[in-house]
């Protein structure tokens, strides 16, 4: 059995009452790409954190190359050849690539010697794995894809033979993701072992040799990728059959409900985040805004919702103008028929320390039906919350539970129930399924389409291209604050990907 790089036996880990990993067994063969897939909260990240020494398992053994090892901290993990590329990069922004790579592995107190050596080694690595990065570039000036490459180089510099990548494509454009997969293929060809954690089934199918599925803290199955299917994996993840394609009929757009004209938004430092954006959303259609995170979509939504001040431009809601540059009042916009599901439900859409029922009225707390004069009508509020809990199947069905104790999917349902049940004319939604499990995604997508079919105008922003393509009736692509194109949902992923990457993307494609 010398071709097993990593073997986990009976790994068990609890956080208080939460059993995050329950008797996990896993074998990863040397020189393969092994996918680990599961919903949010299935325990993937916990398992990898144990392997990398962030957490200690309560029970269980870890074997690396057939030898049992006790991984107490990341340093031990590195010493046995395990490297990790985190979902959120662990890079010092104002250091150069070289400085970041050698950070923590400087070899001596005097830096000069180390720098020279590191530079040479880095060159060797770059050549060997086709990982070109300018060693003297500052991290903050590099695009995300290259930053990730630095993370990989960091692991290789520490002589990692086993690389763990945690949700590596979350921040990448499709082109960048493809490039990453090529790099991973190269690493595999050189004999490295790669563990890829993701919740995207397509990536698993595209690149892995084997795949293990986790559900609720348990390892439910391991499959050879060639012999399985997306449907089977989805079913294993969720524990029941899931509808992966969103079913929707033809849109029948009506009047223009939301019209944005020449909207420009600058941030506090005067940097233009949204640049002269115009768009229209009609009743009964879903307009999707595609784009890599950080290209102005968030600011656009916030400006329309009255949370962020626009520098110039006009917005018409139901044909009547909204003061987006001067006095903004989200409460007034709500009263005029605008509902907003914000991107960041933890800090904006919800108050996590509130009871569920208190969040179910957030933003609508001026409604007389929740009030008795200046007092809150607690009974009415709870009753209303319980109705929404039943209708949106929010679990656990407890209106008095603290919101932080709901899972991501159920938290999102709390927000959706609040915003959708008001019957708004215009619904703007940011990242409807970020951090939401597969089962809930299906439900949320259905509700969004229902809203459209009821004749609501829906503006949707998501960094998940699949989501945009399957829900939208029209797709606008944003890059660097501008709308750079409009496509139909039938447009290919490659075509959208090029738009999302802006001009740079086009150059890369030409090569």
């Amino acid at each position, binding site marked *: 059995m010398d071709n097993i790089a990593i073997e986990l036996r009976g790994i068990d880990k609890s956080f208080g009452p939460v059993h995050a990993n329950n008797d996990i067994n896993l074998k990863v063969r040397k020189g393969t790409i092994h996918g680990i897939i599961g919903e949010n909260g299935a325990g993937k990240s916990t398992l990898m954190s144990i392997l990398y020494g962030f957490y200690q398992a309560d029970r269980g053994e870890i074997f690396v190359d057939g030898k049992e090892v006790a991984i107490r901290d990341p340093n031990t993990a590195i010493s046995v050849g395990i490297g990790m590329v985190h979902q959120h990069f662990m890079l010092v922004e104002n250091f150069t690539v070289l400085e970041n790579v050698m950070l923590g592995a400087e070899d001596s107190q005097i830096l000069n010697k180390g720098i020279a050596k590191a530079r040479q080694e880095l060159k060797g690595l770059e050549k060997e794995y086709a990982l070109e990065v300018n060693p003297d570039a500052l991290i903050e000036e590099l695009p995300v894809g290259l930053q990730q490459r630095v993370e990989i180089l960091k692991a290789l510099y520490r002589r990692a033979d086993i690389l763990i990548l945690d949700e590596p494509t979350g921040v990448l454009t499709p082109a960048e993701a493809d490039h990453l997969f090529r790099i991973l293929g190269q690493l595999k060809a050189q004999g490295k072992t790669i563990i890829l954690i993701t919740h995207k089934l397509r990536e698993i199918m595209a690149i892995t040799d084997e795949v293990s599925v986790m559900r609720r803290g348990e390892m439910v199955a391991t499959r050879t990728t060639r012999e399985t299917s997306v449907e089977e994996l989805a079913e294993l993840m969720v524990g029941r059959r899931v509808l992966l394609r969103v079913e929707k009929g033809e849109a029948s757009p009506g009047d223009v409900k939301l019209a944005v004209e020449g909207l420009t938004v600058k941030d506090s430092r005067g940097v233009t985040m949204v640049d002269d954006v115009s768009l229209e959303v009609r009743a009964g259609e879903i307009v999707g805004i595609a784009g890599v995170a950080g290209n102005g979509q968030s600011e656009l939504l916030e400006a329309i*919702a009255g949370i962020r001040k626009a520098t110039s431009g006009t917005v018409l809601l139901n044909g009547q103008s909204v003061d987006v540059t001067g006095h903004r009042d989200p409460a007034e916009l709500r009263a005029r028929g605008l509902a*907003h599901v914000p991107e960041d439900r933890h*800090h*904006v*859409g919800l108050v996590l320390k509130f009871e569920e029922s208190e969040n179910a009225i957030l*933003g609508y*707390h001026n409604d007389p039906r929740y009030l008795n004069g200046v007092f809150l009508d607690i009974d009415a509020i709870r009753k209303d919350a319980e109705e929404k809990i039943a209708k949106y199947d929010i679990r656990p069905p407890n209106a008095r539970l603290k919101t932080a104790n709901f899972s991501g999917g159920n938290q999102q349902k709390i927000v959706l129930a609040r915003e959708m049940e008001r019957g708004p004319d215009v619904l703007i939604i940011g990242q409807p399924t970020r951090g939401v499990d597969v089962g809930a995604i299906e439900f949320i997508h259905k509700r969004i389409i229902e809203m459209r079919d009821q004749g609501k105008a829906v503006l949707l922003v998501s960094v998940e291209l699949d989501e945009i393509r399957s829900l939208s009736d029209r797709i606008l692509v944003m890059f660097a604050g501008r709308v750079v194109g409009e496509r139909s949902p039938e447009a290919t992923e490659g075509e959208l990907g090029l738009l999302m990457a802006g001009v740079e993307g086009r150059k890369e494609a030409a090569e």
Partner: protein
Amino acid sequence: MSTPYAKLPGWVEYGLIPLINLAVAFLVAGLVVLLVGENPFEAAYHLINGAFGRGEYIGFTLYYATTFIFTGLAVAVAFHAGLFNIGGEGQAYVGGIGVALACLWLDQTLPWYVVFPLAILGSVFFGALWAFLPGWLQAKRGSHIVITTIMFNFIASSLMVYLLTRVLKPLGSMAPQTRNFAEGGQLPKLDWLLSIFGLDVGTAPFNISFLLALAAAFGVWVLIWRTKLGYEMRTMGHSPSAARYAGIRESRITVITMMISGGLAGMMALNPIMGEQFRMQLDFVQGAGFVGIAVALMGRSHPGGIIPAAILFGVLYQGGAEIAFEMPSISRDMIVIIQGLVILFAGALENMFRPAITRAFAMRGQRAAAVVQTKGA
């Protein structure tokens, strides 16, 4: 998975952990007493006896507690809206103007039960005014409330020196204080309340403003958890971004919250001025505004926690004075050290023992689960 601490049962969260913190504070305080060559058990005896030993002592303890309930509530209300009002000291001090004016104006003609409501209004008005200015400065000009309230403490102090030496002082008097109030400016004692328990209040100034403090505590509970304003305050306190999203106007809530907070702090002035001294003296607040911060921290900003926390500090004040009296080598400063230790362990280091306790409980839970499993097998 991402929650750092697992949820503990209520009696551990609100009972065991504060008690352990308190016990450790007293343990360390005992070591300090030992260090100056005194017997810590004797000190503990004097502390407890001095606070509860006689009806009179209890009266003093509750008199101090009354003051701390007001200032603790003041800090807690602001805290719920995410504002840190350090200016309770100054607001209480200036609140005294309202009390003094009502008394000086009417004490000779009207009975206390007419003067008292007016004095309450006066104290609230002046306290709120003193908190309005920092609140308004933060809402409109972005001046941080922690800084401005501290500065307003000093301004209040200077203002009161001016008023008590120039304006409110009777002609010919040497002392920086108002004239003594007639009967209309004196609050009745709560001797009947203690006599129910067979205790004699003696000379202790335990007065009717204690009941006002309890009513204020209930009022704060209603405000925070049962009104729309309280809902908006809590939303802003937990998450300013969610408040903005919900259309809650930050500047409006900031100003209103600070005024309520200042009003509560101002009411504190009723207790010493109308309840004990029957005149307004220089420096009558004596740090109660700052003690209020500790009380609010310890009471978790909940009226149900603030009342016992205020009583605890009442015990420390009254019992501490008794220690200083009975054990001359322990000075007043030592008492301040002990009070500081309580604040340190119960407030600042509140979570120090939590991980260990959580672990102990997790282990107990696991063992219980294991027992169930073996039984099942």
